[in-house]
Every structure is written in C-alpha cells, then in structure tokens.
C-alpha cells in the first residue's frame, strides 16, 4: 500500500534548513495497522503529512497503492486525497457552523456526489458511529468523543483505502478514547489500512506494528508482541 524509499523532508528556516524527516525507508502493506510513536518534533506528523499527500518529500520516492505520487500535480494529489485517503485529527477539525450530517457530507459536496445520495450516505455513516440521533447537532452541541466520531464518519465517507489518524485520542477522556479506538479496530478489521500517530503506548499496542521515530528517523520497528512487553511510554520504547 505504502512504500517510502529514502524519503526526507526539510524546511528552510532563517538561513538554514531543518530536517523533519531524514532518509525514511518504510513499507506498509495493504490492510496493515501501524502506529507511529516518538517525542514531539521527532517527525511523526511530517511522515503522516507526506504519506497523506498533504506535503511532498524534499528527496526520495513515495509509492501509494503502486503509484508514485512524487511526480503528481497539485490537482492529481487532491484527487488522491479525495478518493484514497481519510484523515482524523486530534482537534477534530469540524466546521463549526455545519451540522454533524453536513460535516460528514462535506467531502462528497466537492466530489460532486448527488445531494440525495450524500444525505443518505452521511446519515448511514453517522449511524455506524452511533450518532444517528445527533445528525442535526452542530459541533458545539456535541461532546469531544462525539465530535471525533463525526470526524471518523467524515474520514471514511469517501470509502478510502488508507486512514491516517494524528493523535485521535489525544483530546479525549479515557471512555471516549476507548470508543474511538474500538471504531478504528473495526475499520481495520473491515480491510482499511490504518496509520495512527500517538504518544500513548496503549493506543500503539492495538496496532500490528509500531514505528518509533526520533530526529526524523525511524529508530525502531516493534511488533505488537514487543509493544505489549514494552514500558508504558514512547520514551522507554524508543530507548529500549
């Protein structure tokens, strides 16, 4: 599904540049559930942005579903994001003036899906995340957990093959977090490739594999068994 070959991403700051990603070579199989851990500034989110086609590598090559995306135009990348990738964010990023239903509809509006079909699919998606009775509520009328469930419904509404989640439970209480993780498990069980950036080893332990990053490099690759045996913090895992 994902193949990164010697991918680097650096940013110009002042007169010099900072390498957020340094020579990352990685392969994620279709249907795999991968967690990415590491301290702040280690390059986790940059890696997720590059994989999500929100950012381009400075050097190196990236294949998504067998297609090299490095040479794609801006419009082609937009289509890749629209049809292949779903995003879940720590801060939900729901449009405050739109209802839950309209937030879920949003990607379909710009993909020219017919109005009736949009409504029906969005309602089904909200029902699937247990929010059938919240369709008309605006984000400020929903709890944090409900907001993230709306975001999950939105991320999956275009039936993507790849779901990218950046700290999906980072802003939730433990009960809501557990609900969100169960939903991610179900989506993975349904065949979705899942990449989750997290600081929480409890989250990473649900993944089949964990990449531990530091200073833009993938410094360790842990299986779920190794993660279960690791100390409950990314720092310990990284240094072990």
């Amino acid at each position, binding site marked *: 599904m994902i193949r990164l070959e010697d991918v680097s991403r650096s940013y110009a700051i002042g007169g010099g540049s900072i390498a957020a990603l340094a020579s990352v070579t990685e392969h994620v199989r279709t249907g795999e559930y991968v967690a990415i851990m590491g301290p702040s500034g280690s390059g986790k989110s940059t890696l997720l942005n590059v994989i999500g086609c929100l*950012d381009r590598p400075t050097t190196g090559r990236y294949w998504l579903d067998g297609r090299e995306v490095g040479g794609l135009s801006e419009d082609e990348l*937009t289509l890749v*994001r629209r049809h292949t990738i779903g995003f879940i964010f720590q801060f939900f990023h729901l*449009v405050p003036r739109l209802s839950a239903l309209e937030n879920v509809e949003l990607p379909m509006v710009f993909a020219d899906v017919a109005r009736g079909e949009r409504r029906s699919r969005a309602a089904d998606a909200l029902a699937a995340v247990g929010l059938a009775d919240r369709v008309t509520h605006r984000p400020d009328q929903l709890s944090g957990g409900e907001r993230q469930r709306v975001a999950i419904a939105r991320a999956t509404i275009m039936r993507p093959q790849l779901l990218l989640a950046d700290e999906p439970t980072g802003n939730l209480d433990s009960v809501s977090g557990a609900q969100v993780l169960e939903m991610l498990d179900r989506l993975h069980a349904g065949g979705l490739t899942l990449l989750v950036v997290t600081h929480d080893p409890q989250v990473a332990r649900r993944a089949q594999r964990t990449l531990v990053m530091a200073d833009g490099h993938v410094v360790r690759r842990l299986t779920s068994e190794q993660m279960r045996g690791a100390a409950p913090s990314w720092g310990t895992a990284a240094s072990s």
Partner: protein
Amino acid sequence: MTARDALGFAGRALRGHRLRSGLSLLGVAIGVAAVVLLTALGEGALRYVTKQFSEIGAEVLIVVPGKTETTGMMPGVAGVPNDLTLADAEAVARRIQGVRRIAPIAMGTETVAYGERRRQVAIVGSTREFFALRRLEVSRGSLLPAADMNRGAALALIGSTVARELFPAQDPLGRVIRVAGLRARVIGVLEPRGTHMGMDLNEVVVLPVATAMRLFNRRSLFRLMVELERYEDLAPKKVEIIALLTERHDEEDVTVLTQDSILESLSSIVRVLTLALAAIAAVSLGVAGTGIMNVMLVSVAERTSEVGLMRAVGVARRQVLAIFLVEAALLSAVGGVLGLVLGWLGTRVLVALYPAMPASPPLWAVVASLVLATTVGVVFGLWPARQASRLDPVRALAPRS
C-alpha cells in the same frame, strides 16, 4: 459542487457573522442606493426640462439679441448687441412666410400696487399672441386685445397669486393697479400655472409690449418668439430670419435658437451632471469593496483550519477559491439588491416631496449599479480568495497558538 451548494455554503458562512456581514453589505447598499437616487434625480431633471419645453411647441424659433460667436457667451450675457426692436418684430411678421404667430417679449421686475398692498413681481410685456404661444389661459376676464403691437394701452393681466394678494376680498377685474409709475386696468386673471421656463406664472403681470418697454425705458426686446406653421421649416426660416435682421441691422447680431437646440444643450448638461454624480456614487462602491475585502480577509484568517481541512479531504484549490469568491459576490449582490430597494424608496420620498420632479431611476442605472456592485465584490474578493486557495494545508491544519 453545484451552484446551489456553493450559495448555500456561502450563505451559511456569512450568516455566521451577521454583524460583520451586515455592515459590509450596508456599504454596498449605500453605494448602489446613491447611484440609483442620483441618476433618478438626473433623469427627473431631464424629464422636467423636456416637459417644460414641450408645453411651448416644437416649431418655435426664439430670436435673441446678440451673437454667440461674437461674445463667446450666451446671447445677452455679454457684449452690447444692436437693439432687437418692435420694428424688427413687425418686419419678421410681414416678410417671413409661414409664420403662425409672433410674440415680442420685454421683461423686467417692478413693484405692483393696489391701494396699500404692493408686491415685487416679474413684468412681461407682449401681445395677445404670447398667451397662445405659452399655452396660457385666463381664469377670469379676457386676454390682451389683438391690436397693433406699437400701441401701448394701459391694460394688465395678473397672475393668480398677484390677484389673491392684491385683491384678497375683491374682484380685480376693472380695477386700476400701479406698476411703478404706470397705472393700468386689470382686464384678466391668468389661470394658475406654477413655474414654467424659470418663471412663476402665478406671480407675473402681463402688459402690452409697447407699454412695458415704455415702463422699462428700453428700445430693445428681451426675446422674439416666432411660431411657424410647419416644424420642417425651422431650419430654412431660421436662416431667413437671420438674413432679414442682418439686412436691417447691417450686421449679423442676433441669435436664433430652436427649442431642439436649447433642449439638446440642457439635456447634455443634465446628462453630464448625472453621469458625474453617478460616478461619484460609484466611488462609494469602491470604498464598499475595500470593506468586503477586509471582511473576506478576516474570514480567511479565521477559517484557516477549515481551509486546511477542506484541502485534506480533497477540495481542490480552485474550489476553495470559488467558495470565497461566491461569498464575496453574494455579499455584494445582496447589498446591491438592498441598495436598489433603498434607492427606490428614496426616489419615492423625493417624488413625494417634489411632485413636479418626475424622478425615476433609468433602467441602465439599475442594471449597471447591480452589475457594478457584484463585480466590485468579485474583484475585491479575489485577493482574499486567492490567499485562501494558496494556503498550505499542513500549516493551515497546525494548531494555532
């Protein structure tokens, strides 16, 4: 994205900030209302002038002492032309064929008195023909007698206001009024008419032309109005009259105006003024445009993460551009429609206050102001929309401190 989706999305965004959107919209509305109201005023002035002239008749030539080319100014305003005399008027009546009626006019201002009551009014000296030429009727009494224009009888017709003020409880007919040092018998009262061609016909006293010239101690007429039998004769008769008077004066020292030429000059002036006023009003639309730009820039800044989200879920740059452009266009278009309503209401108020002024906005101004308002919205919304469409999704989605 369908037009319905785009409009719905834009409408929701604008309703999210009612005060901000409302103020920006008001700026456009004021600009459009100003264009509509001012052009309505200009159009009203044009119709008013046209109506005034139409009451005289199109086949009228007006002979004025003095020559435009000689003085470089309107005849009578500068220079010292030869007199335009009653003898000239008689010569025109006698020698020019196809003249239906001719009215020599002398003008001045004098105090008119009856007993202890007195009033400063405009004095018009003319002949019986004058009344037909100016479509004037009497409400009581009779017109000036059809007599030799050189005969200065001591007769007067008075306007309705003059009659009311000098004779509040009496019938003025047969009474003798004093016009400066002259005593004249009132033989008629004019029908109420109001202001016409710059003169309040309710506040005039009409005397035989020779009497008026004696009163003013003048030899020259103010005007000579010549009504022809046929409209088609205007041009050739104008030439004939100039030739005749040039022969009599040994030089070309009169100007002959047609109603069309006067109307054309006045219309041009009014049109230029109207356009100038509309242009000034349109400037206010430009100012309103900067208001829209400001609102849209604030909106883009506030919705940075929303734009980032859109880009992440597969919304193309051109679609982001369209979202913000539609918002700006909607803001200005709604402002434009509101402006039309305000302009229309303003015009109604104007007509109610000044019924003589048939003010109504021309269609071109209505269409142009609406198109201009929407264009202003799109043009001034373009930069903020481009800013939004060019946002880097990674930065846009980053938590902001």
